């Protein structure tokens, strides 16, 4: 069996060539010899860290990001089918979707895969989601965090409607709003402008952000226990 560094390099090569099938074989082979739940921390995280570096250097194509996303999705499915299933998806749920009029779902899919890999249950509402649908779903499902993705400025500003609705329903502080997408990377001040409580620079950093926001909401809810 190859060491973990070689595994990560091998996965990097498969992504570079858009060869998801070989990437999957590498991961399946590794999982045969290791506990399923270790695959996130020991394989996916370092693999995506390398991918993130390459992406920030502008050396990653859309197709390569897609291949990496699919590989993470399939690995999470594989992990979920394993013997440790009872330990999965014990947190959440996080309500996630693309902002109203936003149809760029690739980033959201990667975030969903990574949240699931980190034991978060996810309610994925898809593209072009209205503010009331986000908030209604969060209330119905007992979620404490809504995560919204937007690609462009024009669609990102629709996130303000979600912030307004959270406020109008008296849930400020008790229901947190995470925002993300390409536009926030290039225009970071937009997070505050649309009323976001936080953002993550990469999909890999999303679970930690959710943890923080969820705990903040729980604390607030503990103070105002009227939900």
């Amino acid at each position, binding site marked *: 069996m190859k060491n973990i560094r070689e595994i990560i390099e091998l996965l990097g090569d498969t992504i570079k060539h858009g060869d998801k099938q070989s990437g999957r074989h590498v991961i399946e082979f590794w999982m045969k010899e290791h506990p399923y739940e270790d695959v996130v921390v020991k394989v996916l995280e370092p693999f995506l860290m390398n991918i993130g570096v390459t992406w920030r250097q502008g050396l990653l194509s859309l197709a390569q990001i897609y291949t990496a996303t699919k590989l993470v999705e399939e690995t999470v499915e594989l992990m979920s089918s394993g013997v440790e299933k009872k330990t999965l998806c014990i947190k959440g749920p996080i309500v996630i979707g693309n902002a109203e009029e936003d149809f760029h779902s690739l980033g959201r899919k990667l975030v969903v895969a990574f949240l699931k890999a980190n034991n978060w249950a996810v309610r994925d509402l898809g593209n072009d989601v209205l503010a009331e649908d986000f908030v209604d779903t969060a209330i119905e499902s007992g979620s404490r965090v809504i995560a919204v993705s937007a690609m*462009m400025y024009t669609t990102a500003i629709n996130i303000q409607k979600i912030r307004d609705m959270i406020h109008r329903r008296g849930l400020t502080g008790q229901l947190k709003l995470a925002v993300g997408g390409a536009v926030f990377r*290039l225009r970071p001040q937009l997070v505050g402008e649309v009323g976001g409580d936080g953002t993550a620079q990469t999909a890999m950093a999303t679970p930690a952000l959710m943890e923080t926001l969820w705990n903040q909401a729980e604390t607030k809810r503990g103070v105002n226990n009227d939900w």
Partner: protein
Amino acid sequence: MNSTQEDNVICLACSVFKDDLIQLQKTEKLPFNKIDYFDSMLHMYPERLESEVFPRVFKAVTDGLNVLLLYGDCHPLMNEFELNKHVVRVAGVNCYQLILGMKRYKTMQREDTFFLLPEWVNRWQEVFRVHLGLDNQHIAREFMQDFFKQIVYIHTGKAIIADNYFKEIEAFTGLPVKVLDVGLNHLKRAIIESFNRLKQKI
């Protein structure tokens, strides 16, 4: 200077509109004589778009010109130019919406449509394989079919439809290519509306 006479207005446009603007210039009276085009593939590289288009806007204003930006929301800071009284941007999310109009654009987006514009058809291999990075056909098919149900070629009138290209694109992506004949009314209206805003700003 900076009056809104035609000679004092420059249109800085994405090359995706080149044929359409040439056509409009022949049939309509557009409120500008000068047009500078930028490669439409800059859309895929926001940093490059910023480094090529933004300095050109600043230079035009410094030279005493008014700028009509024929761009969608292709960069997170594109709308900031509106703060300058000598610059307006057409009101539109992207090139498809500017040509199709908001209602039709939204309907087609909700039908999971991948839009194909005339300027891209002749170089579809470059668009898909180089700029989208879909050089592996297996991944290209999976990617396209994962996110889209159809490809619609937006035929604005001038460009000749090249059937063989459509067949190649269908074979490459596994998605049907439909041709949608549209006029240039929406685009013309967006240009005139933004020019009127420019006149009010100055």
